[in-house]
């Protein structure tokens, strides 16, 4: 059973389009992180959201943490081929210190 469900699992769009990736759970997390992973490399942290309802922007990327801290979304505006990669959400629970990852969203942006 996946504690964090990401959707969609695969997304193929044209350059310039907008997209949203969702990360949902029935559990409450103390914080949630988004990572991006390119082939042959480890995941790289994009952002951490901590407060329910928090919105963070990173250039064309907008991250939101749900009010109840159970879900999050990543919105990309005017996607570019350089945005191509695997996007992973990861939740932090108070105990154990471990990050629980979603299964990832494979994004392909075609020129």
């Amino acid at each position: 059973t996946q504690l964090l469900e990401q959707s969609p699992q695969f997304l193929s769009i044209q350059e310039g389009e907008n997209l949203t990736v969702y990360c949902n759970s029935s559990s409450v997390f103390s914080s949630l992180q988004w990572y991006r992973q390119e082939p042959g490399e480890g995941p790289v942290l994009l952002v951490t959201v901590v407060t329910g309802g928090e919105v963070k922007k990173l250039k064309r990327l907008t991250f939101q943490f749900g009010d109840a801290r159970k879900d999050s979304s990543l919105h990309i505006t005017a996607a570019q081929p350089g945005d191509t990669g695997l996007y992973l959400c990861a939740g932090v629970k108070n105990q154990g210190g471990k990050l629980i990852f979603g299964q990832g969203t494979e994004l392909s942006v075609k020129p």
Partner: protein
Amino acid sequence: EAGVTQSPTHLIKTRGQQVTLRCSPISGHTSVYWYQQALGLGLQFLLWYDEGEERNRGNFPPRFSGRQFPNYSSELNVNALELEDSALYLCASRVRGNSPLHFGNGTRLTVT
């Protein structure tokens, strides 16, 4: 600042063999995490070490084990390899608390 380094980068083993993967964390990082990334399954938590001790363990059989050395580097050992152990094994480190994880580029293990 050097990042998290893992060795080897690629490894091919046959079923039943044993393997040891190595990880050097970023200087100053005391916590090391191991994750398994199999195709289509995302990152599955394996082990967490801090200050030389195992702090938490994921839902993996006992043939997955590891340790952390006094210099905070870590090893992941997998005994009696099975075909489904084929995956990318990622190591990550961080300072204590909920600071961000920094990942290495992983070891690609193929079991034939």
